[in-house]
């Protein structure tokens, strides 16, 4: 720089001009922001080349100084502009690089998949939800029951032919495995006065084991006892239930039947939700086998002997009860054709029932 010491104003102006040109050359080879900033400091910083040149200004006649000052400003502006453009270019290139990245979106997500809820639980929860919405409480009871709760209190005496309808498991201590969820009715009514409006889901046991029977299976029972509960209320309740469970077009059909603990009694059929009971779909419907109806359970008006057994005033209150097999409901709802699948616990079956 000392060589420029004796320069004239013109020399100085040229020096400033070459300063900008030098910087332009230098910056072209730089690739990162810190390098560029460092170069900028070398030219424009406190100890930079521009400062060195400015120190020679004192030797310039005052009349020439404005021309040199202008040249200095041009050089500074030119350098600063170069820096700005270069940095913007770098940022753009970075962003372009960032945006050029891509993934194979068809590869599976990482981590363990959420588990599943068993179809029998799922269908029970759904039924509970429907009845909770209709003002029913959920009640449960023990698997091991007394014969009184399971039979006698339900108007099914020791010699009642109805005891033939279900073969019971006996355990030690004179107790049995409940053969239906109806003892929960008895326990609930013994526990408090009417009104009672409950459903009772749970596993029950019968000595049957073949393609269409399992020794343990889940049922859900309903009971509504109050003043002026009638057969028409039963119908209305069952219709409301099947329409929520199977769909709003569903109808029911009641057929007279016999259960020791209800009188009058009725079998409950729901119209087939697959073919809607309408021809020509009905004729070939695999679900209802062409009948247009699906058997879903039993029902009836609580027998006065049952009300009497739990100490309710049979002249004051009436009630209805209904019951259904949850395996059957799950088979219908999910198109399961083999009952045994529910108990084989093969994950390839179970994993078709996501939680949620």
């Amino acid at each position, binding site marked *: 720089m000392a060589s420029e010491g004796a320069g004239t104003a013109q020399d100085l102006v040229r020096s400033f001009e070459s300063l900008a040109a030098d910087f332009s050359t230098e910056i072209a080879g730089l690739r990162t922001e810190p390098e560029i900033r460092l170069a900028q400091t070398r030219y424009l910083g406190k100890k930079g080349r521009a400062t060195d040149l400015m120190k020679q200004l004192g030797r310039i006649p005052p009349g020439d100084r404005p021309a040199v000052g202008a040249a200095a400003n041009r050089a500074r502006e030119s350098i600063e502009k170069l820096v700005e453009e270069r940095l913007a270019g770098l940022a753009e290139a970075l962003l372009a690089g960032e945006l050029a990245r891509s993934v194979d979106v068809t590869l599976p997500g990482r981590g363990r998949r959420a588990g599943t809820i068993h179809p029998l639980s799922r269908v029970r929860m759904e039924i509970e939800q429907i009845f909770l919405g*209709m003002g029913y409480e959920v009640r449960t009871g023990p698997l091991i029951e007394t014969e009184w709760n399971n039979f006698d209190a339900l108007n099914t005496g020791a010699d009642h*032919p109805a005891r033939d309808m279900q073969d019971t498991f006996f355990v030690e201590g004179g107790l049995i*495995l409940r053969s239906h969820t109806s003892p929960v009715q008895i326990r609930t009514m013994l526990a408090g006065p009417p009104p009672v409006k409950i459903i009772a889901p749970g596993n029950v046991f019968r000595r049957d*084991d073949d393609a269409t029977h399992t020794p343990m299976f889940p049922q859900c029972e309903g009971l509504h006892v109050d003043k002026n509960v*009638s*057969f028409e209320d039963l119908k209305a309740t069952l219709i409301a239930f099947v329409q929520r469970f199977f769909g709003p077009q569903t109808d029911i059909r009641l057929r*007279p039947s016999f259960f020791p603990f209800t*009188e009058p009694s009725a079998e409950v059929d729901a119209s087939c939700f697959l073919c809607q009971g309408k021809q020509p779909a009905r004729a070939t419907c695999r679900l209802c086998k062409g009948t247009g109806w699906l058997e879903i359970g039993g029902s009836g008006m609580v027998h006065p002997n049952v009300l009497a057994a739990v100490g309710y005033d049979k002249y004051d209150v009436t009630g209805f009860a209904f019951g259904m097999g949850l395996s059957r409901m799950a088979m219908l709802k999910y198109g399961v054709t083999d009952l045994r699948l529910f108990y084989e*616990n093969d*994950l390839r079956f179970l994993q078709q029932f996501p939680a949620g």
Partner: protein
Amino acid sequence: MKISLNWLRELVELPPEVDAERAAAALTGQGLEVEGIEPKGRELSGVVVAEVLGIRPHPGADKLRIVRVRAGKREEDVVCGAPNVPPSGNRVCWAPPGARLPGGRTLDAREVRGVLSPGMLCSEIEMGFSEAAEGILILPPAAVPGEDVAKVVGAVDDVFEVNVTPNRPDALSHLGIARELAAHFGTRVRLPEVDQVPEVDGGLAMDVDIVDAQGCPRYTARFIAGLSVGPSPISMRLRLAYCGMRAISNVVDATNYVLLETGHPLHAFDFDRLQGRIVVRRAREGERTTTLDGQERGLVPEDLLITDARGPVAIAGIMGGATSEVSAATGNVLLEAATFEPRSIRRTAKRLGIPSEASYRYERGVDANGIPFASLRAASLIAKLGGGSLVRGTVDRFPRPPAKVTVPLSLTKLRRVSGVDYDITFAIQQLTRLGMGCKPQGDGLLVTVPSYRPDITIAEDLIEEILRMGEYGKPARKDRIASNATELANPEGSADRARRLLAGAGLSEIVTWAFVSKAALAAISGDGKDATLGQGITLRNPISADYEVMRTSLLPGLADALKRNLSRGVADAWLFEVGPVVRRAPGGDATPVENNHAAGMLAGRRGGWLKPGEPLDFYDLKRVVEDVLRGFGIADARFVSPGAEPFLHPGVSAQVLSPSGAALGCLGELDPRVLRKLGIDSAAFYFELQVAGLAWATASLRTAAPPRFPAVSRDVSFWIDLATQAAAQRAAFLSAAEPLLCDLGVLEDFRDPKYVPAGKKGVLWSMTYRAADRTLTDAEADDAHQRVVAALAAAFPIQIR
């Protein structure tokens, strides 16, 4: 029960448009569910009744003959090989060319040893009537030549399978079903015609003495003399077969026929093999008898017997005895028609394990007032079929006639139970159709119930009768499903919460039987050393040894499910079950204790992404358990080793305790010895939690706003004794009670013997320090960290690294 539509049509007039489908729909709608309709005899066509005109030998074969037959105007020579071709004038079954037989065979004219035969004469087998026959079928002389055989013998029929509920003994017969149809279609039943047979006075007589009137309210005996036993006519045998009964002989078939027709069991004794008089009494201790199936039966004093001077001749209402059985040699018959007490019959039939058509009906109740007709009808039929005579005079002992049953029905009750404002005339109309008598009484009726309807005893029974004739099917007239319950509890809520949490943690729910094998309980209880697990409540009548004791833990079921999945090639199995286990009550209380448990089983590898994952270990299991506990609001459960359960690996297991120390369950790797006993050849991790414990521990959820000032972290790394657990170190750090310490956790736990001094492990902890009201300075954090580390050093010998 099988019901023939042809038979029904004889007993009730049905409108012409009523076919099998409609009749079945009517019955089903009324509560007698027709589960199936089986068309019969449709495969047989064109076989006609033919009169034998003459028989001559076949020129080419000794065993064949040429039979000249006539059917209508047609006469032909038919070649026949049967040994029993009857003489001229008899009726046989001729399948001319074009006739079809069951199995799809169509007849044509064919040469038989040089003689052209237009079709053939048929046996019962060929026509599908029975499975055994000797020679061709010979029809009664009344059959008109040229008529269709299938029609003449009643082979074309529809058989209903009717599901009769146990309260309806009246419907266990064709007459009973006919009554239902008559009520439905508004027509009347026609009692079957009693055959006109010769009657004689005297000759046979035997007195009857009922010792046990409780067990036998009515006993009648009729006598049929001079008959001969032989096969019954084909139409009767066919009908019996259609209804599921085997033809035996004309006498026995007649009793069975009338049983199916009227619902009254009847029994025919060989009169000449009885001695003295008939006495109806209970069995004596040690008495034995041989029933007509050839089995010797031991009797007990509650069994009701029919006896003669020599001893038992029948087990009342269940099965006749071998000694008095009707045989080919029988010439005189005593026909019993009686009623017995249902309870007594039920017990004996059950104990002896010989349910019969008779006992089935007696158990449900046979109408004593129906006996005279059934007895007369059967006796006449026997006399007719056997060519005998009816002896005038019947012995009828009737010590306990049933009381006339009347049931009051108030209109208020009818309306209250049905929910519909019926008027009284509607009720009368419905009940009258069903054969009930109605008299006004109070605001309703006094209804006289026919004696064949023992199921009707209270007003509700009458209400069902009124409603079941068409009212069940009408749409509901009001909508009354609104809530009137005040509190909606769901006791399954906690169990379902566990299910959702476990599913969220990646496990799949299974459902297994509540009963398991004794071997499985032995395997998980250290061969019964742990009595709680090993001594389950046993079933007295299990289906098999696989299901003989109530599960005391969910482990056997989960192990079984894991085994099955592994054997089917599903290696990555994360399974759970939530459900009750049954354990003996402490203190010998007879009622067992049932508690919901939530258990899970993990086997396989950790989820490796696009590469195989690492094998699972204890901490994968612990994460699941922690997720469930957190879901129940338990953030600070304690994990205490060693585990207490005999089925877990002693070094890789823990008890789970609530912060207050209550047992919540266990977790750990399954003991390899137990795995072997359970048949699983892969490592597996297991936990079991008590749902009630989780629900009970659930605290109400409290939260804090996120901190406003930044935190500073400091690490400390040291050697410490291998046996000093992380929880103990943590407790020591916390004993400093340093107010600035807001979080701490282990970053590393390394035990590589190449680098770690013997008996030691290297642990790296990271602490987070924060003040609630300012940004901490480095110096403040350093001071706090020093105090915290000093607390650990005071508690355990450590070497800072």
